[in-house]
């Protein structure tokens, strides 16, 4: 069985504010891309207590459910800072899960406060759209 690769993309508009990085990296969303590389597997015959990890600093828990054919059937994200918007598995790899999440809105950094009004309005509008997407997942 292949191990799962889980990436999380934060859709928060704040990631679009900084100028795009020019390092020739093909992943254009890389600024908002995060990697969850602490993956535990729970099989039918595992003791229930296996879920109780020893990690003290855990802030976010992702639960991926699969069926016997290892097809992802559900994904949950339990976190104070992030909420799940949607998830998808790669077309060519069932074991690659990309989670679209949204981090909590936060105040703009000082460097972005002097943006022209048009840009501020655009951010405001995008955040309203995102609020709506978030509300629709309730």
């Amino acid at each position: 069985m292949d191990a799962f690769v889980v990436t999380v993309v934060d859709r928060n508009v704040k990631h679009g504010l900084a100028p795009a990085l020019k390092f020739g990296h093909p992943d254009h969303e890389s600024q908002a891309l995060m990697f969850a590389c602490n993956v535990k597997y729970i099989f039918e015959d595992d003791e229930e207590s296996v879920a109780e990890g020893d990690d003290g600093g855990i802030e976010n828990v992702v639960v991926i459910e699969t069926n016997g054919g290892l097809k992802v059937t559900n994904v949950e994200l339990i976190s104070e800072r992030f909420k799940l918007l949607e998830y998808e598995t790669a077309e060519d790899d069932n074991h690659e899960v990309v989670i679209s999440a949204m981090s909590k809105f936060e105040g703009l950094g000082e460097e972005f406060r002097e943006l022209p009004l048009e840009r501020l309005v655009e951010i405001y509008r995008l955040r309203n759209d995102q609020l709506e997407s978030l509300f629709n997942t309730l």
Partner: protein
Amino acid sequence: MSDTNIERVVEKSRRFLTQAQSICHESNNRLLLLKVRIQEWQKYRSKLQFVLECISEQTDFLTTILLKRGIGESLIEKEWRSVVLVDLVNEMEHWQKEIQKTVERLDNIKNVLEQQRDTHLGDFISRDTPHALGEKLTEVPVIKKQVENITKQYQHMLSKVQSQVVGTRLTRVNQEFDRKFSDQCEENVKLDEQSTAEADQLEQELADFLKSFTDHFDKCGILLSRSLAPVDSKSLYEIVERDDKDLPAIDSALKEAASDVARFTDDGNALLDKKEGEKADMEAAVMKMMNELRKHEEYILVFEGISKLIRKFKISCMNSIRQTRELLDFYANFEKSYYNLLSEVERRREVAAKMSQVIKSCEDQLAQLNSADIRERQMFLLENGDFLPETIWPHEIGNLSPLYSLDSSVRKI
């Protein structure tokens, strides 16, 4: 300890066990469903809280960043009231005065070259361009009024957002959340802590009951298998027989526990039904809040529109200033060139005078030559005229008219 007795207790234990399994299964299912519902309810509340926190932040963005900073400070105070209405207007007035002074000066310079009419240098310049800045300046009060008007609207909008959107609506939604959806709400505390603990406890009770029935059934099985030594078998039978008598009591205790589970889950589900019933109102309030935020997108567009208009005005003013400055340079050159022209006129007059002198002197010399020539011709005729036939040089021999004719003039300047 006859076989019949053993078979009887075995049969009885199987019957009770099957019944207990069925009861426990049903009760466990009820408990599981309730726990799942409680978890879903917790997730819902957590997400709702997240949405509300984002809305609070977005409201703060609207008031602090968009309205106060973007519109209030940057646009109204800095760009409009300071840059456009003070700095730009001052600059326009300065250049307007400059051009007026220049035009006035040109108006006062008499064109000495025109004799018949009384004209001045000012008559030779276009009057529309110097007025361009003046026209712009007459528009300033309109812009000023517009800025004052939009400032009032801004202040109105800001106070409305602060008092109604933030002060009332958002506070109310948050209070409603705290009252009905927060972890501090008593009903939620009951669901999160008491109910979950009680469900675990009930599950344990059911498991204990089931274990009793299973243990008893297992003991009966051992008796039936006759695998024990007679002494052990006898003592086991005594235990089984005692337990067998307790079976109805345990069974009724299990049924009691099952009723407790049913009551507990009914209560829990009823409470969850009630809580979920409160979702609709809350969601409607959140939706209204979001619509309120959306509405301000449009309001702010109006500021954007006016901002563009004022920027357009500003640029056209700056164009006029530049044009005026170029014109000032041009008029300065015009005045300078006029005075140069006067020198030029003088120079040309001097040349004309010189030319007149040359012509006069030429006329004098020609006249002298001519009178000498006439004298010479008369002498010639006196000496030779009597001997020469007139036809030898027809029309010329006795002609005494001057050899030259001079027609010259110098234009009066």
